[in-house]
């Protein structure tokens, strides 16, 4: 019987052949980053979009961050904490992944994160997944990684997954979401994999 992750994963990615191809792509990519569009099946992704409206706890320290943090929803946990998800990530990065730590953050107008002296700059494998109902680049909100060979800029896009091998010293921020976003919001499901 297929797991929650395998039942949710878009069929186009769900084969050993594709796992191998993604692993080769990841290995060859200088930035050690993989981006997968339409990551989940349409109905699985649709089920997650209700999180865009759910109550969440505001987190703000003005010189470091402003966003809303959500509890780990069962649907999120079933996908991104599933052993088959860890196997998938391990197949791409080329080593065994034992566990992951997940956070779910919602960003809307006036939210951001900033670079800070206390940032975690240790190397490691990270992933993130965007949930939104369309997003325009003019709104801000891009997740930016600095300190690698070149900046990696990831604009929020619906149902889009990134897997990244962070090098030593690489730091990240989420650009301020400006007034052009109106009432639009996006969610980042993110985690460290060990």
């Amino acid at each position: 019987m297929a797991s929650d992750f395998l039942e949710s994963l878009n069929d186009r990615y769900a084969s050993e052949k594709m796992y191998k191809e993604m692993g080769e792509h990841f290995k060859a990519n200088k930035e050690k980053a993989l981006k997968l569009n339409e990551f989940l099946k349409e109905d699985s992704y649709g089920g997650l979009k209700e999180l865009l409206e759910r109550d969440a706890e505001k987190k703000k320290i003005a010189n470091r961050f402003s966003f809303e943090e959500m509890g780990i929803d069962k649907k999120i946990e079933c996908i991104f904490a599933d052993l088959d998800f860890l196997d998938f990530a391990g197949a791409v990065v080329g080593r065994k992944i034992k566990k992951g730590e997940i956070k779910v953050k919602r960003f809307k107008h006036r939210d951001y994160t900033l670079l800070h002296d206390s940032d975690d700059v240790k190397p490691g494998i990270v992933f993130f997944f965007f949930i939104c109902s369309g997003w325009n680049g003019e709104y801000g909100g891009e997740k930016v990684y600095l300190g690698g060979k070149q900046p990696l800029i990831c604009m929020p896009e619906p149902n889009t997954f990134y897997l990244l091998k962070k090098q030593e010293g690489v730091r990240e921020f989420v650009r301020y979401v400006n007034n052009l976003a109106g009432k639009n919001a996006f969610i980042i499901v993110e985690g460290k994999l060990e």
Partner: protein
Amino acid sequence: MELKEWIKVAWLEEKTIEDMNEEFNQNRPFKHVFITEFLKKEKAEELEKALKGEIFERKESDLFRFNQTYDLQDSDNAVILEFSEMLESKEFADFIGKIVGIDLGAGALDLFGSLYENTDYLLCHDDLLEDRKIAYLLYLSDLEEKDGGALTFLSDKNGEPGEVIKRYFPRFNGFMFFAVTSKSWHEVEEVIGNKKRYAIGGWLH
């Protein structure tokens, strides 16, 4: 340099300086003063016109997004150079020094023009760098609540910024200055709409 050629005479009187010194020391969340109608009207208008003729460069980082001139002390514009000379003078250092209660070195300053347009912002920081003692801003635009662009001051909570305590909307020819410390948390709120927020500012050392 005669300060009264630039600054309204009323601000240069000893009693007014004493009052401003008291206000500077009492204002919270950290020491500051906002002086409205600071320069003589015609000087402020000349300065506005001159600043709008300067070249602005787009500046972007995690912390900010706005337009900034190069160092205005290198400007080719006679009005801006004269204004710069006034700020660099011993008389100006003494005038501000009396208000803030510390000795300021004549000529020790940075001077830049800034322009914030729709969606531009400067997020929370303390300005503390090198030997900056006083941050100053001369506003050359009027903005109100619906336009955004307020300068906000935040409290300090165990070494981190806390709540917004004061919000100042730019007023044409308003002069703001505040003490730079590890607790001088402030930000420029996002400009919303078509108003352009022009200012000249920098730090006194």
